[in-house]
């Protein structure tokens, strides 16, 4: 089976956000594989181990993303591809990302493409379905279970807490939800092997794309931090008095009850 995983390198969730010159400062920040993409990588490895084939992890980013690609290879992926469009395309959004990925994937005869359902930085949740649409294949988002039998596929999808049991077939794109699996940590032998696994680097030219083809359809005009919350009121006194005061505050001051 020919399996691809779409991966994004993101800010660690624990990082404090600092804005500098209108952008989120990356200075000294820790980066990780987007947590939802980790589920996708783990699932891809399990599917390959069960059905045979090869797992290729693809990312769009700059040379810094090599670290996260190596981590994916250390987990067990077979090959990695880094598509670096930073110097070629000035304005980028999810349209750009999807178009570039689809262009890369279109002649790869992928049976299964996996991605996270959302990235924790931008939070747009668009790229998976966009890529499937551009490739002309079906997709199922936020999956928590995947069973493949020949070309038949049974998927369980999380729908705001309820579950849909879906039947579909390969080729297919799925996006991973928490609960799909428990991503493994790279083992030491895995890390050693990963160093020798192929990591291909591509640019826009290699995909026969021009900047105009992939230019963003949206533009960020401002990034700002939420207004600092004034420190809250810790109530004092007898618990029953505190409760009375709280209810009164919610009613008269906050006016939410």
């Amino acid at each position, binding site marked *: 089976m020919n399996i691809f995983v779409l991966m994004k390198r993101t800010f660690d969730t624990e990082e404090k956000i600092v804005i500098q010159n209108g952008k989120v400062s990356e200075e000294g920040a820790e980066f990780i594989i987007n*947590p939802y993409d980790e589920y996708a990588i783990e699932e891809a490895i399990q599917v390959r181990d069960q059905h045979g084939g090869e797992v290729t992890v693809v990312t769009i980013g700059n040379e810094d993303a090599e670290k996260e690609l190596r981590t994916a290879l250390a987990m067990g992926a077979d090959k990695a591809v880094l598509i670096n469009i930073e110097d070629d395309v000035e304005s980028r959004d999810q*349209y750009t990302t999807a178009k570039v990925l689809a262009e890369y994937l279109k002649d790869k005869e992928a049976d299964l493409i996996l991605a996270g359902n959302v990235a924790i930085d931008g939070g747009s949740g668009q790229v998976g379905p*966009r890529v499937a649409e551009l490739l002309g294949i079906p997709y199922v988002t936020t999956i928590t279970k995947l069973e493949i039998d020949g070309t038949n596929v049974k998927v369980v999808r999380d729908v705001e807490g309820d579950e849909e049991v879906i039947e579909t077939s390969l080729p297919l794109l799925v996006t991973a939800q928490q609960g799909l699996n428990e991503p493994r940590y790279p083992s030491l032998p895995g890390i050693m092997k990963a160093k020798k696994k192929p990591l291909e680097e591509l640019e826009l030219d290699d995909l026969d794309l021009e900047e105009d083809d992939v230019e963003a359809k949206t533009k960020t005009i401002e*990034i700002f931090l939420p207004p600092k*919350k004034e420190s*809250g009121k810790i109530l004092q006194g007898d618990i029953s008095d505190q409760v009375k005061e709280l209810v009164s505050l919610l009613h008269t001051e906050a006016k939410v009850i």
Partner: protein
Amino acid sequence: MARKVLTLAEVRDGALRNVSFEAISAAKTIAEGGEVVAVVVGASVRSFASELIAYGADRVVVVEHEKLATYTPDGYAQALQAVVEQEKPEGIVFGHTALGKDLSPKLAAKWQSGLVSDVVAVEETGGNIIFTRPIYSGKAFEKKIVTDGLMFVTVRPNNIAPLEKDESRTGEVVNVQVDIKDLRTIVRDIVRKTAEGVDLSEAKVIVAGGRGVKSAEGFEPLKELANVLGGAVGASRGACDAGYCDYSLQIGQTGKVVTPDLYIACGISGAIQHLAGMSNSKVIVAINKDPEANIFKVADYGIVGDLFEVVPLLIEEFKKLKVHS
């Protein structure tokens, strides 16, 4: 600049979801005086048209087909394609719900357009429409504009106030016929795991429990409090991991992101992943035994105490308040 804007209405448990009315409100702002057309899709959904008009839709387009009884991306995309071709809108607004999140990127890709998802505010400036959306799990926000193509937007539930309901409003209701074919995904079964009643992502009041709730039974007083307030029960990952409640209740970075008017956190320490899911709630109340708990840093009001003592007292007080008002 007047624009024609579509909204996709969503039906759940036999009723329109609130976010459908919020989408109409957002569409009104985007339309800048142009027409707002609500689209409702399903097997038999014409009866919802009048409520959409009462909430501000100028017209309603109804697409009915037996294969649209359950949402599938292919089925709904075919329905929307027929409507877009007929109506030629400049923008489409969806709820940022499981359905909206799943469908809108497919359509945006089909029309080679931009999509601004998870929008919490819409401003008209006379020129561009400016959309505000959270990034980094709500730790920052960005303002975006659409520069080219159709304007696709999803709005986060509970953030954009719906217009006042006005039953006297009138508007045209039209049917669009579609032939739905070649569905590549089939929904075989829907397993209901969430409780009947108030939908967590749309609830105005949420009472959430953490590890401090200590057991499944420990959630009972929280449920009662939520009931008294007409709200929903949520949970931290810790409570879900400990098996006190179903993962469908989980609020946080993984799990649901909620912005109710009132969030009452009971026995929740306030890990950063949990805060990511609720810190933009309008008013936050924290109840925790540990005065050093992180949750107090984001709370508007805090009570340092045992939730099993505080919550029953709260239930009594809210009941009294209800009787008086």
